[in-house]
Structures are given as structure tokens and as C-alpha cells.
């Protein structure tokens, strides 16, 4: 079987120190993310402070996740096959986020006639205030509750 199970039987044993350092790093990152969330950051370029804050929080979360995956879950010392399967779930998840494409581009469609396009800005869908014009009748008018 040497041809396919080339992985050595003796698994890589990671030292307690490595694990402990990882734990400390994780806790530090956790504290950092809580701390940064308390501060309202300034906008950077076109990105508002809110976006910057969110991006930083997510970057830290990804860093923590990477630490857990590589060290605690031992992916760093695992076979290519395992690594591929680790990646597969996350790659597919990115594909799933392709759904956002719909919501991002919905507002770019032609909506002429029923909504005035303000200069420069694209029409944004806000159903809450609008009702269908025409004679009102209780049973037939659309009720869109706020």
C-alpha cells in the first residue's frame, strides 16, 4: 500500500508550547477585535468608518479561524488531500455569496416611468412608503406593513 498511503504512520506531534502560543494569540486577537469595535474608525478613501470597522472585525475573525484550522486542527501538517477538502467547503461558500450579486445589481435596472431617478443616484427600492395608485378600496389595495 505504500503507493497510496504515503503518509507516515507516525503523526506529527506538535509541542505544547506551540498550542499554548496559539491560544494566547487567539485570545489577544479576540481582545483586539472587541477593543476596535468600541472605537468608531474614520473613513478610508471611499469606505466609510462602518465598513472599515466591519472589515477589520472580519479580518481578525479570519485570522483567528486560520490559526484554529492550521494549528489546532493540524492542517499545517496534513496531506494535500486534506488541505484540498478543507478549502472546498470555504470555496463553495464563496460561490454561495454570489447570491449577493443579485441584490447588489437589482437597483441598476431600468425603472423608468414609475420612479423618478434623482440626478446621479440610482433608484433604490423602498417599498415601504409606496402604495399602488388608483381608487382606494380596503380589500384590494396592497397592504405593505412597515
Amino acid at each position, binding site marked *: 500500500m505504500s503507493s497510496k498511503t504515503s503518509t507516515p504512520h507516525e503523526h506529527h506531534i506538535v509541542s505544547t508550547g506551540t498550542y499554548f502560543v496559539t491560544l494566547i494569540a487567539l485570545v489577544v486577537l479576540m481582545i483586539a477585535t472587541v477593543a476596535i469595535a468600541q472605537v468608531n474608525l474614520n473613513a478610508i478613501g471611499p469606505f466609510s468608518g462602518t465598513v472599515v470597522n466591519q472589515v477589520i472585525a472580519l479580518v481578525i475573525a479570519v485570522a483567528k479561524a486560520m490559526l484554529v484550522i492550521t494549528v489546532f486542527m493540524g492542517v499545517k501538517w496534513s496531506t494535500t488531500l486534506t488541505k484540498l477538502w478543507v478549502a472546498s467547503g470555504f470555496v463553495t461558500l464563496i460561490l454561495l455569496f454570489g447570491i449577493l450579486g443579485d441584490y447588489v445589481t437589482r437597483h441598476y*435596472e*431600468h*425603472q*423608468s*416611468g*414609475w420612479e423618478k431617478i434623482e440626478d446621479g443616484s440610482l433608484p433604490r*427600492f423602498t*417599498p415601504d412608503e*409606496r402604495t*399602488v*395608485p*388608483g*381608487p382606494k*378600496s380596503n*380589500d*384590494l*389595495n*396592497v*397592504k*405593505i406593513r412597515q
Partner: protein
Amino acid sequence: MSFFNFPLAPPSASNIAQQYDFVFYALVALSVFFTLVVCAGAIFFAVRYKAGTKADRSRPMYENLPLEMTWTIIPLILGLIMFYFGTALFVKIKTPPKDCEEIYVIGKQWMWHMQHANGVRENNTLHVPLGRPIKLTMISQDVLHAFYIPAFRVQMGVVPGRYTQLWFTATQTGEYHIFCNMYCGTQHSEMGGKVVVMDPKDYAAWLANGGQSTTPMSMEQTGAKIYAKMHCDNCHGAEDTLHAPSLYGIYRKRRVFADGTSLIADDEYLRDSIVKPYDHITAGYGQTMPVYQSQVSEEDLLNLVAYIKVIGSPSANPPTSNVNRHSAPTAVSSTNEATSLAANAVQANTADPDATPTRRVGAPAVGAIAAEGRNR
């Protein structure tokens, strides 16, 4: 009758339909071609290289990159061409021109409610002028629906909480189906109606008149209007149904009743059957019909009877075919809608008889409906 009726294409009655049909038939041609290639190839090889037959089997081929690339790239290119035409069509369908006339549509279980710009309203029937771009702005009041006019090749989902839109320019007068094409519950299949394409002049007059036809109506036509408005045709259609006998050709026929007696159906009998239906229950049916005593004015009764006397005969305008057999759960208080139905009935006469299958008035063949006299 309809069994021998094999229409091969839906009517093509809008500007979109014309462009659509071009793309569609191009795809049909492409599909037929490749289907023939594959079928002929498979059969030819199966016969030519059948086991035990003499054939040259030397130097068999297992891999051939140029060949593989051929049948990778040719379908790819053809696909991209089709993608281009399909997308161009799609963008056209999704992009209403600026000068559209607007009509608002509300979908609800299980009816369509339309509102014209000047406030005229109608249910399940949509009147539009010929040759002018119309845009429908649609929303649903409950579940998902889809507004679908096959003859125009347009369809759009109708979603609660959001507006969607759909546009077309009708190019032929006539009446065409409207279907709800997103499953929406029990009576999904009956959530439909028709779109009536009118000459712009007629449409303007119709609109100005609050959705009523300006043509004077005969008694039969008025009766037909009432017949439709009161949803008589829900039960009394072209054929006997589970709930009720058909009234087609009933006048001066002998009617046999549940108690064994019988009568000739004359004017008096027809009137009595409306106001006091349980006095003479036709054999095989139960007490399912509402009693209309003091609900219908005598004038309307006269008109109704006049209509029922000719119902089903070619001279009559039946209650605008079966398209309106919808029991609207929340009856519309406005009379506009009811009269507009009648208007359809009238307009049906003036339109071109070949434009659409919807308009095959007279006895629409309903196949093997429930056996006569079946009672549940």
C-alpha cells in the same frame, strides 16, 4: 372537437413576440439539426459496427485532440451566439421604453386586479390599446404569482413587498390568455383571465367611459353581462358539471326533475329557477344553487332570461367564454369591473376570428367532463 385541434404555435401578438419567435425558431432549427446528427450517428454506428458484421476496425481511435476541440469549440461558439440573441431579447423584454402607458396590477389568491392610470379598474381582464407600449407595474398582496401572457411572450414574477414590471406593445387586436404561472395555492390554475387588445380609439372611448363599452347593448348582451357578473358561468358552463347542469340550448327543452316530474323550459320556468331554484331541482343535482329571490331586479331577470334563451347558440354572445369562471373571494363593489366584462363580450364580436384560440366562442369543447347526472 378539441381533440383534433393541434395548434403548433401560440398567437404572436406583440412586438416582443415577433423578436422572440425569431430566436425561438432559430433554436428549434439548431436543436433539430443536432438531434438528427446524434440520432443518425448513433443508429448508423450501431448498425455499421454491430458485433459480427464486416467492417474496418483497424487502427481504432481512442484520443484525438483536434476532434475533441472541434466538438468543444463548435458548441461553445454556437452557444455563445445563442446566448447573444437570447440576452438581446431578454434585455429588450426587461427594458421598457420611456413613454409607456402605465397600468397597475395586483395579484392575490386567486385573481388579478388591474388599475388603469385614470382609475378604471377591472378584475382578471386587462384592456390595452393596440400599438402603444404598455407597462404593467405589479405587486402581490400575498404569495408569489407570475403574470404571464403567452401570446405576447412576456412573463414576470409578481412578488409581495416589491414592485416588478413587465412591458409590451400589442400588435394584434383580440383576446389572449393571462395565466398565473407561479404556483399560488388551491385555485392556482383558475387564477387567470384575458387581455383584450383594442383599437386605440375604442380603448380611449372605453377608458373615458369608465371602463364601459359605448356600444348599445341588446337584451341578450345585457343578460350576458349579468350572467358573467353574477358568476352564473362558474357552474352553468358549456357542459354539465358536478354542481350544475349546463344551460346551453335549454330553452323549450323538457327538464326532468329530482322528484320525477318534468316541465318544458319556458320563460316562466327559467325565471323561477333563478329566484326559487329549489322548486324544481334537475334530476341528479342537489340543493347547491343560491336563491336569488329579491337579489336580482326584475329588469335584470328579464335580460337574464333573454340571454339564457339563446345561450350556447351561435347568435348569442356567451359570457365571454369560460375565461372568467373565477369566484372572486372578495367581491368587487365597483360596477366598472362587471360592465367591463360585458364590454369584452361585445368586443369579441368585432375582432378578427382567427387571432386567438381564446376567442373560439360558441360551445367550447370541454372533453370528458364528469358524467351527466353525477351527484356528490
